[in-house]
């Protein structure tokens, strides 16, 4: 069996096969060295369709889909810069702020059942974590994403455009937050029910005619 193509080769062929696509290789420093391809979200479905169709890859099996939340992190770093102060060159400390994160990510693990090879990992990032939380759905290409993308929508709040049935799956329909986000705060009391006193009674007054009101 031919060894699988490296990510660099896949990237090169992908860029010629899908015009206008922006692909980046995300490095991985852990000992397993599973690197991944970061695909821009506008070309996601085209890239996915190509990966599945391509004769050398035949990634017909989408194993795992998951979300990762990366809130914005500001790291401050002190660096020493040489600058002229009053005509004399001096070393001055400056604080450089670097911002990273601030998006939600969907990670897809692809294998080929036909050629028995894999894994190719692709990932897509949303614009931000609030309004631009949309990604194209890959369910039309691999149906195994159907329930898993619903789960990501439920727990992370990524809206998958083109998903046939995007509803909450694990949490109940009236639930509002997305509990797998890093900044999710649990409620103090899970079993809170409004009981008839104070604010509830005040609200209830509106429903009674004045002569019967308690």
């Amino acid at each position: 069996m031919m060894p699988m193509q490296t990510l660099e080769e896949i990237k090169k062929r992908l860029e010629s096969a899908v015009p206008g696509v922006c692909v980046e290789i995300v490095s991985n420093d852990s000992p397993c060295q599973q690197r991944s391809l970061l695909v821009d979200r506008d070309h996601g479905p085209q890239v996915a369709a190509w990966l599945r169709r391509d004769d050398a890859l035949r990634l017909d099996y989408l194993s795992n889909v998951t979300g990762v939340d990366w809130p914005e992190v500001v790291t401050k770093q002190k660096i020493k810069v040489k600058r002229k102060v009053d005509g004399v060159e001096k070393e001055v400390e400056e604080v450089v702020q670097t911002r990273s994160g601030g998006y939600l990510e969907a990670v897809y693990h692809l294998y080929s059942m036909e050629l028995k090879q894999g894994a190719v990992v692709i990932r897509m990032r949303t614009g931000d974590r609030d309004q631009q939380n949309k990604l194209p759905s890959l369910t039309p290409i691999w149906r195994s994403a159907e329930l898993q993308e619903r789960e990501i929508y439920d727990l992370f709040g990524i809206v998958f455009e083109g998903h046939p049935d995007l509803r909450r799956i694990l949490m109940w329909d009236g639930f509002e937050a997305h509990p797998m986000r890093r900044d999710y705060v649990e409620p103090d009391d899970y079993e809170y029910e409004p009981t008839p006193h104070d604010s509830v009674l005040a609200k209830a007054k509106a429903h009674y005619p004045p002569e019967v009101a308690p």
Partner: protein
Amino acid sequence: MKTTVVEPPVPSGAPVGLPAGDGRFSLLPKTSFDGRVETELLEVAMGPHHPSTHGVFRMDVVLDGETIVKLKPVFGYLHRNHEKIAENVSYLASIPYTDRLDYLCSMTNNWAYALSVEKLAGLEPPERAEYIRVIMAELTRLANHVCLIGFLAQDMGALGTPLMYGFREREKILDLFEALSGSRMMCNYMRFGGCRLDLPPGWVREARVVVDNFPKFLEEFDNLLSGNEILMARTQGVGVLTAELAVNAGITGPMLRASGVNYDIRKVDRYGIYDRFEFRVPLGDHGDVYDRYMIRLLEMWESLKILRQALDDIPEGPVMDPNAKIRNFKPKPGECYERIEGPKGELGFYLVSDGGANPYRYRVRPPSLVNLTVLEDMCLGHNVADAVAILGSVDIVLGEVDR
């Protein structure tokens, strides 16, 4: 509160309880203008407490008479956000939680998680530990498959007998687990870098007795069920899943192989030491419920083969990697996805480390959940009673579906 109660007008003279009109009941069904019987679609919620749903699981079924025209699985009743819990505790502390995912197969859950952490941190378990893991995984496969076949038969009306026969054999395997780990089901046995304990003295001999006696039971099971006319009538040609759809929908495990796709992660990835054992991968032809039943039966024979080889070859030696740090364990930043062939399908763990003591992201790829994707496709056009058999053949455990 002001309310005005409007009394419904009572038609004078007509006895209460009879419909209006000519006052006579008709036993004939309503007919439409072309003479056909008018029917209505009926929406039924099967579950969440239906005994055939193997836990708290609901199927919202739309029926045309007895025929299923639409089916939506509804779950989440057992959701406890396992992934969030695991992200808030250390790597070590998640191992007991993985036991509770698929509570019938705690050993394989442990292994999948341990394997993933080992790849993330670059640990290498010693050889004896690898053998022990294979033995545990195959024993788990036996225990899971006998349970499943028992439940499947019970769902189709064979009350008690096959299930109890299966449970009797499973109990012998659970005794082995208890002797080893102290617990029958929640074994909490494997660690990253090896196993928690070495085998107690005499364990291999006991295990060999169980393995040697198993074929007798399997033959009995086979004779009891495989040629049974009722089982064949209820399962053959029911819930057919084509190979193409199975691959596209990410179906794994015995369900995929029943559809004729040769994909066993033990053969493909050769994780652990599976390249040392001789075994074959049984494949189905039709992809129906009967094939799924049969594949599991045949898989048990192959598991026994692996077990015999592993019990013969197991070497002496340590069971933990000396480099493995169990406490204060902080892998380098990075990510890792590793998978194993669990009894129900591909069980994978995706871990992202940011260099801290807790995983930054912890994800379980649950085979039961993904295998439910095609439940509707398999059930459409069949009767309600067949949906029970089809769901039974998918082999779900709600602890893993809902997490």
